[in-house]
C-alpha cells in the first residue's frame, strides 16, 4: 500500500533543499498542503498509476491549492475557482501536487528571466538560465525536488528547458491533452506537456493527463495514452530522418558532437538513419513570432483591471483609462512587446502582409513534416537547442536573440506534431538535449525510440 504521508514528507524535504540552494524553482509550495493532500489520498485508500507521485505544476495551469499568477504582477495572488483537466486527472491517478513552478510571464520567454517574481537558476550552474518558459518545472526535476512536472508549450517551452537542465520533456500532438485550465497564450499552438527525470516518468505522466475532454473543443477524441511499454532492445526496422536544416555549418560544436554521438547510438541499435529536408525550417521563427503574438494580443485582452487584474489607485478619467493603466503597469516588458507586435500584425493595413502570409507559411511547414513522414520516416532526430544553457542577461537586451533560441523547437508547435527532448551528453558540464519529432499522434513511437536511446547513451558524459 502506498505511504502517501511519507511520500509527501520526503517531497517537502527535497523541495526545501532545492530552494535552499537558490534554484527558485517554485513560486508557491507548502508542507501543510503536501500533507493535507497525502492524508486525503490515504484516507480514501487511493490507488492509480501515479499513486504517491509528487508532481510540480507550472504556474500557467489552474490549480486550487495555490494562486495561479502566470508569473505576472497582473495576476498576483489570483486563485482559480476551478482546476485544469490535467491537474484533475493527475489527482485522480493518486498524485500529490507539489506546488506551482516559476515561468516567464504568461509563458512568453525562453529563460524565466521574464518572470515578475524572479527567475529560476540552472541547478548545475547558478550563473546560467534553466531555459523557459517552463524553466521552474525543468529546474525542479533536475534538482531532484520532484521526479515529474507539468509544463506548457506554445513554441518549445517544455523541450528547451528540459534540454538546458538535462531532463526529459514531451510536447504532445496538439489536442492530445486538454487545454481546459491552461491560461491561454496562443490558442492554436498551446499544449500542456510533461517533464520527467527519465523518459518513462515523463511518458507516464503524459499517459495519465491525455485523452478527450468535452471542456476543450480542440481536444482529440482518443483514449488516454496510458503507461509506456518497456524500452525496446533493438530499433531494427525503424527509420530516423535527420533534417539537414537543423545542422547548419555554424552549429555549436558541443551540440554537434552530442548529436553525432546520439545518431551513432541509434545506428548501433539497428535504426536506419536517413538524410531528409524540411525546406521551410528557416521561416519557422518568423512565422511563430507573427502567429503567437497575434493570438496573445487577443487572449490577453481580458486582463483589464475589470475582469482580471488590480485596478490602479487614484482617480482615472474613464474605464478606458483604467484599462490602460492596469495593463501598462501590470504587464512586464516582453508581454507588452508581444501584445503590441500582435496588434500591429493584425491591424487592417498589415493583416495580409504579416498574419495572412504567416498562416500560409505555417501550412508549408506542416506540409514539410507530412511529406517526410509519408516517405517512411518514423521519427526525426535533431538537436533541441542551438547552444547549451546561456548566461543570465545574455539575451534580455535583444529580443530577437532570445527568440532564436527557439529555432529547433517552435516548428513542432506550428505543425501540431509531437516532439520530445532527452539528454544526450554534456559539454563543459552543461547538458545537451536531443530531439525526436514524430508524425501526428506518433507519441508512442518517439517515446519507444527515446527509451532505447536513453539506455544506449551516457547522458552525463562529456561529448568532446
Amino acid at each position, binding site marked *: 500500500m502506498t505511504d502517501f504521508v511519507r511520500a509527501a514528507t520526503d517531497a517537502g524535504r527535497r523541495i526545501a533543499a532545492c530552494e535552499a540552494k537558490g534554484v527558485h524553482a517554485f513560486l508557491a509550495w507548502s508542507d501543510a498542503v503536501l500533507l493535507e493532500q497525502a492524508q486525503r489520498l490515504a484516507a480514501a485508500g487511493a490507488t492509480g498509476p501515479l499513486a504517491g507521485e509528487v508532481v510540480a505544476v507550472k504556474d500557467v495551469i489552474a490549480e486550487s491549492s495555490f494562486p495561479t499568477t502566470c508569473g505576472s504582477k497582473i495576476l498576483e495572488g489570483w486563485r482559480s475557482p476551478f482546476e485544469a483537466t490535467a491537474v484533475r486527472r493527475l489527482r485522480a491517478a493518486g498524485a500529490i501536487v507539489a506546488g506551482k513552478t516559476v515561468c516567464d510571464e504568461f509563458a512568453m520567454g525562453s529563460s524565466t528571466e521574464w518572470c515578475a517574481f524572479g527567475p529560476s537558476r540552472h541547478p548545475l550552474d547558478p550563473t546560467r538560465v534553466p531555459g523557459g518558459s517552463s524553466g521552474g518545472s525543468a529546474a525542479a526535476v533536475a534538482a531532484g525536488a520532484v521526479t515529474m512536472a507539468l509544463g506548457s508549450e506554445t513554441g518549445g517551452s517544455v523541450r528547451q528547458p528540459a534540454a538546458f537542465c538535462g531532463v526529459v520533456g514531451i510536447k504532445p500532438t496538439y489536442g492530445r491533452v486538454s487545454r481546459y485550465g491552461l491560461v491561454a497564450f496562443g490558442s492554436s499552438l498551446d499544449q500542456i506537456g510533461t517533464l520527467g527525470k527519465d523518459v518513462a516518468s515523463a511518458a507516464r505522466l503524459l499517459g495519465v493527463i491525455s485523452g478527450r475532454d468535452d471542456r476543450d473543443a480542440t481536444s482529440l477524441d482518443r483514449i488516454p495514452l496510458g503507461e509506456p511499454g518497456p524500452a525496446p532492445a533493438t530499433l531494427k526496422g525503424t527509420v530516423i530522418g535527420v533534417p539537414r536544416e537543423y545542422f547548419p555549418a555554424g552549429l555549436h560544436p558541443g551540440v554537434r558532437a552530442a548529436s553525432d554521438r546520439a545518431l551513432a547510438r541509434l545506428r548501433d541499435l539497428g535504426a536506419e538513419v536517413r538524410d531528409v529536408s524540411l525546406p521551410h525550417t528557416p521561416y519557422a521563427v518568423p512565422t511563430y513570432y507573427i502567429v503567437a503574438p497575434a493570438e496573445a494580443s487577443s487572449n490577453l485582452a481580458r486582463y483589464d483591471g475589470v475582469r482580471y487584474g488590480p485596478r490602479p489607485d487614484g482617480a482615472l478619467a474613464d474605464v478606458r483609462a483604467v484599462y490602460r493603466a492596469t495593463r501598462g503597469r501590470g504587464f512586464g516588458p516582453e508581454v*507588452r512587446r508581444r501584445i503590441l507586435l500582435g496588434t500591429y500584425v493584425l*491591424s487592417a493595413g498589415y493583416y495580409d502582409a504579416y498574419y495572412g502570409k504567416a498562416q500560409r507559411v505555417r501550412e508549408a511547414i506542416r506540409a514539410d513534416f507530412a511529406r517526410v513522414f509519408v516517405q517512411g520516416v518514423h521519427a526525426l532526430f535533431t538537436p533541441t537547442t542551438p547552444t547549451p544553457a546561456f548566461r543570465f542577461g545574455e539575451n534580455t537586451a535583444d529580443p530577437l536573440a532570445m527568440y532564436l533560441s527557439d529555432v529547433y523547437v517552435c516548428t513542432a508547435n506550428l505543425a501540431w506534431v509531437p516532439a520530445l527532448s532527452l539528454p544526450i551528453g554534456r559539454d563543459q558540464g552543461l547538458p545537451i538535449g536531443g530531439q525526436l519529432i514524430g508524425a501526428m499522434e506518433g507519441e508512442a513511437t518517439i517515446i519507444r525510440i527515446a527509451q532505447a536511446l536513453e539506455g544506449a547513451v551516457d547522458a552525463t558524459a562529456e561529448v568532446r
Partner: protein
Amino acid sequence: MSVTRKDVEKIAALAELGVDAAAAAELETQLTRILAFVARLAEVTDDATSAADERAARLRRDAVDPDPLSRAPREFAPAFTEGLFTVPRLGELDRGDGP
C-alpha cells in the same frame, strides 16, 4: 519597414496599453528590428488568396469601439431618467413598493 513613434502610440491605443515615453522609444527600435526579421517570409512563394477573394477575412476598421448593445439601456431599464437607471431605495424594496 520602420516603426515610428506614431505607430507605437496607435497600436498601444488599439491594445488599450499604457506605454510611457521611454518605453515607446525603445519599442520603436525593437519592433522595427523584429518586423524586419519576420519580413523574410516574403521570400516564400505561395498560392496566396487574393484580397478580392470572397473567402478572405473581412476586416473591421482599426478603432476601439464601445461594446455594442443590441438594445439601448432605456429599452430594458425598468425606470430610466436623464440617462440614468432609476432604482428604489432599499427600504422601499422591503415594503414591496418599488417601481
